[in-house]
């Protein structure tokens, strides 16, 4: 018995668990220090939570694209962050023209609807083109090849949009009905954050039920499970892969507008960080697992917004908010090391080589 344990545990494992233990201890220590110091009131925490939820649901929407594409093609669509960027960046011009003509103030719901539609359409178009031109010829190639292609496509798209629309930040127009706040008892919710959370939840619910309930969704799941068997069952695999990219593109386009409404600006490089974070979310929930990606996104958003004040502040770190992104990346690395199947478990774990 002891012999077997010895064989199973290598020095690197021990080292990894030590590192994990140290990080956990630091987190607990920092959190208790912050909580006992009582620098933040419950209102602060509530604000952090709502912000985290809003940001997390955007991550969750993007993560759906990553996770579905990974599920069906077994590749990380590195260029998904550019699919996310392309939609709202293009829709910005629609929004700006609505704003300058006053249409946005007269019919805010209508114009928001059009902005969403344009953004989703552009993102979907980019996603489909990406699949057709860059990924389809590479099916069955060694795994490194599509990944490198995706990285190339990502930079190509970023700098294409930089060339087309310019390299500056564009300020998204303010939508008046989304300004202000709602009060729930003593707690305050900023309107746009509430809207972002609700809209993202509706979209995710819709897309998820599409995948779970409809025939096409069923076919997509079948292709994810086993390509050959499902093609023998008469499923058109190419069509299903394109459909997956369409769904991912739509979700990313919608997430992009929500992101733009929240942070009020768009830029050609805006996709990179949210993209990696959404990928983190997808890994967190177990890549290939749709509900996992949603939960992973929300969890990541919450940790990112609460984390710096909760455990970094307690450790006496100056300006903890600068390390917000580092938290996300550290979480990504830790999950990849300790539990690559994610919190929810990878549905496709058995099939993965």
């Amino acid at each position, binding site marked *: 018995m002891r012999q077997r344990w010895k064989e199973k545990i*290598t020095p*690197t494992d021990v*080292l*990894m668990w030590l*590192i994990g233990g140290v990080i956990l201890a630091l987190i607990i220590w920092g959190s208790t220090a912050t909580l006992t110091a009582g620098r933040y009131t419950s209102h602060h925490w509530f604000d952090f939570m709502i912000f985290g939820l809003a940001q997390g649901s955007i991550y969750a929407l993007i993560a759906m694209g990553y996770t579905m594409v990974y599920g069906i093609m077994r*590749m*990380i669509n590195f260029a998904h962050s550019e699919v996310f960027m392309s939609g709202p960046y293009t829709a910005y*011009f629609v929004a700006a*023209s609505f704003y300058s003509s006053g249409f946005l103030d007269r019919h805010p719901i209508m114009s928001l609807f059009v902005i969403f539609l344009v953004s989703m359409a552009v993102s979907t178009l980019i996603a489909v083109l990406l699949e057709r*031109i*860059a990924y*389809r*010829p*590479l*099916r*069955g*190639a*060694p*795994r*490194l*090849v*599509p*990944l*490198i*292609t995706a*990285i*190339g*496509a*990502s*930079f*190509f*798209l*970023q*700098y*294409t949009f*930089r*060339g*087309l*629309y*310019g390299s500056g930040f564009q300020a998204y127009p303010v939508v008046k009905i989304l300004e202000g706040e709602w009060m729930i008892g003593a707690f305050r919710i900023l309107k746009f954050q509430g809207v972002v959370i609700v809209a993202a939840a509706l979209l995710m619910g819709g897309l998820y039920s599409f995948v779970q309930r409809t025939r096409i969704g069923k076919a997509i799941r079948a292709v994810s499970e086993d390509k050959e068997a499902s093609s023998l069952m008469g499923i058109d695999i190419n069509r299903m892969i394109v459909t997956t990219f369409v769904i991912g593109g739509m979700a990313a386009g919608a997430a992009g507008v929500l992101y733009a409404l929240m942070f009020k600006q768009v830029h050609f490089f805006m996709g*990179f960080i949210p993209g*990696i974070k959404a*990928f983190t979310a997808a*890994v967190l929930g177990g890549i290939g697992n749709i509900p996992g990606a949603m939960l992973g996104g929300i969890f990541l958003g919450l940790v990112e917004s609460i984390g710096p004040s909760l455990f970094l502040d307690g450790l006496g*770190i*100056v*300006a*903890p908010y*600068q*390390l917000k*992104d*580092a938290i996300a*990346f*550290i979480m*990504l*690395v830790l999950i*990849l*090391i300790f539990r*690559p199947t994610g919190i929810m478990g990878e549905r496709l774990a058995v099939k993965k080589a």
Partner: protein
Amino acid sequence: MAMKQSVWPQGIKTGLIGGIVGVFLALVGMVEAFSQRHIIADVVSMGHTLLLVVALFIGYLAAKRSGRNELPWVLVNSFISGLILGGCLALLVIVGNWVRLRAVFINASPVLYKLLTFDYGVGMGSLLLLGAGALGGVLAGLFYFSPVLTRRVLLTSLGSIVIAGVLQDLLRPTFALWGPLAIINEWLFAVNGLTLHGAGFLFVIVSGATYFWAKRGSAVQAGFRRFSPPKQRALRLTGFLLLFSLLLTLPQILGLFLSEVLTIVGLYVLLGLGLNIVVGYAGLLDLGYVAFFAIGAYTMALLTSPELGFFGLSFWTALPFAILMGVISGVLLGIPVLKMRGDYLAIATLGFGEIIRILVLSDFLRPWLGGAQGVGKIPKAFIGSMELATPQQIYYLILAGCLLVGFISWRLRDSRLGRAWMAVREDEDVAQAMGINLVATKLLAFATGAAFSALSGAIFASKLGSVYPHSFNVMISINIICLIIVGGMGSIPGVIVGAIALVGLPELLREFAEYRLLVYGAALVAMMLLRPEGLWPEAVHRRELHAGGSDETETKSLSGPEPSSQEGL
């Protein structure tokens, strides 16, 4: 995808693709930016050349795809494709004159329209565009039908004119320094671009040389082979010695600016050779490679800079520590990712790279690492009492580094360790079953790569005299990956070719710099689709991919049907 033999000429489809590419190039701003530089003074600008190349390529493609090998049919196809390309651009001009496209596309400026219409106004200009497109298409069709030798001669001579025009800033100052060449220089180049007679002269010379080589080249090569082996070796040795002495005198020949470019290329060669071990030899895709570059640079800065005042060492005493720190961090960052493969490894290392950048940038570590302001006043290296301060002097430092690192990686490649790396790259499980210690092998790859990168970082810090966290972003990692892949994974000359093509050229062509990453991205995709083994592939790799009989590897790496893979720009 089956090749459908449709009645509808292939030219239309191909032409539409070309049209999209042409309009894309115009709207992205490349045409306008490139028009600053003339290939032949006052005749053809680089922007027009770009579009012309697209037209010729599309015409050729249409001819190739037309399916029937009859002259009129092929010509009709390439004519149509060129016409459609011209039509798309004309449409852009017409629409642009009608709607203010500039509200969305910042490059749709009047200057662009003027360029596209050859300054003849919308109506006449559109007709001219159509004509030029169709002419380009027909020429490409004729080219497709001409004999192999003609094609080769035309391609090299026209290509050399374009290259001479593009690289005029490199060639002109170099020639001007050398007495008799300066006269040729005067005659060959105008203020901006080649002179007309210069271009004609170049055309005649190069086509003559190509013709001679095509007719006699094999005889010359055979003559070389007829020498006895020791003589052949001696000839090769003199070749190497000539190359080496050229490398030694290069900064004196080229002058200050080009030496600066050379030092940058050299730093990237160092980085590339390091990553080549990790990615090319061992097959571990590391996207956070810039972290080691940063670690080398920051170690150098901390140990030497009087601004922080920790140690105040000299460059040479600090250098071993910088490399040692690289090795240590390579192992430390390598341990956690030992069990990961492929995409997970790539993302985890990307995460590491970003974590290090964010930490260095933060106020939290500012007292030690200088935060966003970075660290300054890093002393230069000294040899004896000579300070290596100018690019021309630093060049020798970098050259020495490159030669050393190149030698090490050349010797490592065929060593036991090198073969273990390649075994791990091909199949981890089989390698382990063959008795290769995966942990040690992978960690050695990370450590060696990190050491090279740290060396490059240390030299970079001393060259610049200061380090900032912003110099170490993820783009550097991507650049290095690109140059390795474009050059050919695992190939040492490939790294050098890649560094010259991807780092040196953009430094020389300032107007190109803005589109650098755009072209990189397209190059990566195109490379993966069309030529996954790279420009100068490793011999083993090339044999695997191109020797007859190994169909399996060929389909595995190239995969995908030929016709559809042509579409990747």
